């Protein structure tokens, strides 16, 4: 067993850290307050190669492994989870899904733009009445011979406005239930697509989230991913990979909150000494650190399984559920350690706490992860 990172993995982690601490930190509070999209940061992230870091270099990707991706996600999420969710959706849902299940023509046409960040990808699965129960797709994709006709509404879409390549899940054969679902590559400029208003969210406010409406949108036949009826499986397989990214995001929120708490508790004084010298605070820090370490190990194990071609679904779900839940706990404790300062924006931890909440909800709630985990253990 080897817990050492390679030289490349360390370089990637450091590059992500340098970028986050040099660039993202400068306006993260302001962008959160104003719900402003991080346009220039996504451009830098693209130039550095992080938007398609695991994509095969023959499609202009970085060719890096999932362990490197985890390290980069953690560092960026410590500072700014709005930026890391844009990166995560592009990398582990859109690029991964296309790279693994797209045809050669689809990959050649779309992956280079996505991997270099010239275009941003979005993943459209959730609907007003289909969240955790993704089988209940109301968006339809009617087979019209040489094209599909899309109608319906998608909800909570990350990068709906900034993105221009959509992966859309829709029902073609309702009688076949989830076996009738298809996945499509849809260019946002296609006539018939309109966006709902910008969602005014509790956290991750710098990432743009909208609903997307499809009204008689024609999608060429060649833009379907996989065989007819493969869409639900595609959606679930993409989410399996996506979970590792969100797990690493939650890990970053927790480890960022821990780092800030350690620093603050060594500086802040109460009752004549630094609060780190009070056991009530010191033990909180110890508990937070154990959770962060466990979370990191789970994330890295899931990534290692994926990199080595082994099944990562179970550990990926464990990582997603555990990291998200401890991110909520650790960021809440971080606010408590910071006291009144923790409740104001200047000290960052209140934002980390707001952002952590979403990691328990999106890309499969913690409860859905427990269904995946328990089924895997109990159904054999």
């Amino acid at each position, binding site marked *: 067993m080897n817990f050492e990172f390679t*030289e*490349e993995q*360390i*370089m*990637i982690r*450091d*590059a992500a850290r*340098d*970028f986050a601490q*040099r660039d993202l930190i400068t306006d993260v509070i302001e962008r959160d307050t104003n719900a402003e999209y991080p346009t220039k940061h996504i451009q830098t992230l693209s*130039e*550095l*190669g*992080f938007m398609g*870091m695991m994509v095969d*270099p023959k499609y202009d*990707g*970085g*060719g*890096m492994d999932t362990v490197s991706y985890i390290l980069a996600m953690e560092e960026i999420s410590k500072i700014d989870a709005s930026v890391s969710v844009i990166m995560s959706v592009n990398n582990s849902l859109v690029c991964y899904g296309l790279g693994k299940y797209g045809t050669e023509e689809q990959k050649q046409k779309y992956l280079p733009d996505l991997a270099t960040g010239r275009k941003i990808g979005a993943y459209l699965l959730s609907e007003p009445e289909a969240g955790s129960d993704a089988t209940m797709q109301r968006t339809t994709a009617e087979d019209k011979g040489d094209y599909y006709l899309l109608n319906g509404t998608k909800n909570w879409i990350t990068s709906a406005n900034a993105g221009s390549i959509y992966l859309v899940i829709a029902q073609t054969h309702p009688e076949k239930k989830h076996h009738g679902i298809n996945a499509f590559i849809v260019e946002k400029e296609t006539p018939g697509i309109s966006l709902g208003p910008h969602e005014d969210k509790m956290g991750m406010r710098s990432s743009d989230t909208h609903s997307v409406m499809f009204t008689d949108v024609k999608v060429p036949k060649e833009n379907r991913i996989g065989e007819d009826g493969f869409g639900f499986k595609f959606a679930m397989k993409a989410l399996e990979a996506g979970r590792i990214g969100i797990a690493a995001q939650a890990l970053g929120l927790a480890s960022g909150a821990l780092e800030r708490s350690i620093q603050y508790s060594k500086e802040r004084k109460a009752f004549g000494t630094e609060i780190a010298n009070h056991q009530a605070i010191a033990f909180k820090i110890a508990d937070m650190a154990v959770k962060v370490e466990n979370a990191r190990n789970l994330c890295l194990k899931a990534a290692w399984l994926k990199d080595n071609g082994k099944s990562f679904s179970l550990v990926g779900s464990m990582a997603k559920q555990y990291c998200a839940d401890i991110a909520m706990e650790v960021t809440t404790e971080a606010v408590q350690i910071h006291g009144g300062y923790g409740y104001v924006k200047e000290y960052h931890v209140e934002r980390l706490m707001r952002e952590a909440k979403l990691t328990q909800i999106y890309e499969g709630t913690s409860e859905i992860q427990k269904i995946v985990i328990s089924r895997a253990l109990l159904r054999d």
Partner: protein
Amino acid sequence: MKILICISNVPDTTTKIRFVDNNAKFDTNGVQWIINPWDELALTRALELKEASGGAIEKISIISVGGTGAEPTMRKALAIGADDAIRVNAEATDAYFVAFQIAEAVKEENYDLIIAGIESSDYNGSAVGGMLAEFLGIPSVSSVSKIEMADGGISLVREIDGGSEVIGTQLPFVAIIQKGITLEPRIPNMRGIMMARKKPLKVVEPTAAEMLTEFVDYDLPPAKAACKMVDPENMKELVNLLHTEAKVI
């Protein structure tokens, strides 16, 4: 044109400094190593010049005197964009020794421009650049804060007391640069990181040379006194404290 950047492998600036062997040796245990910040800026500026040169600058090499532990730092410089690297396999402790080793390793290579940071963030000796130029028998310009390509040569701005000098030079020479030579160091991108392992990193053995200095004893600066906060409204107390406690007024 060929450019050489001298790279020092130094402890991260946030490292907790400790000493061993009766305070005669720096304890490298658990230390994170980085490219000396001045050298990282020098490399970034050289890359900017190369990219704008339309092919006139063919190659940027880096050189470092250090053990195998210096290689990750050197590989990072390759990831940032240097084309190749030379490591002189010896510990770098004495400025004369380091400058001599660099000169020996590159004297046949005919670099047109050699850039060294004005100091390294560990020992801050500020000596290698000038000594290197002397060993190679070429001019050097110190405290360079701007470096631009000019017709057939290079134009430099050098900081002097109360102003600056613009200097034109003939190649080859050694530029000893200050911070400010460029805005910020470049972060390596994925492609650079992927290419770094494939770029040549040549290891050469040191030439026998004596060290002119040795470290006898290190002393840590006294711990900083606790900071006392005074209410901005309470100027009287501030003056009183400065007078009676700090005894500076």
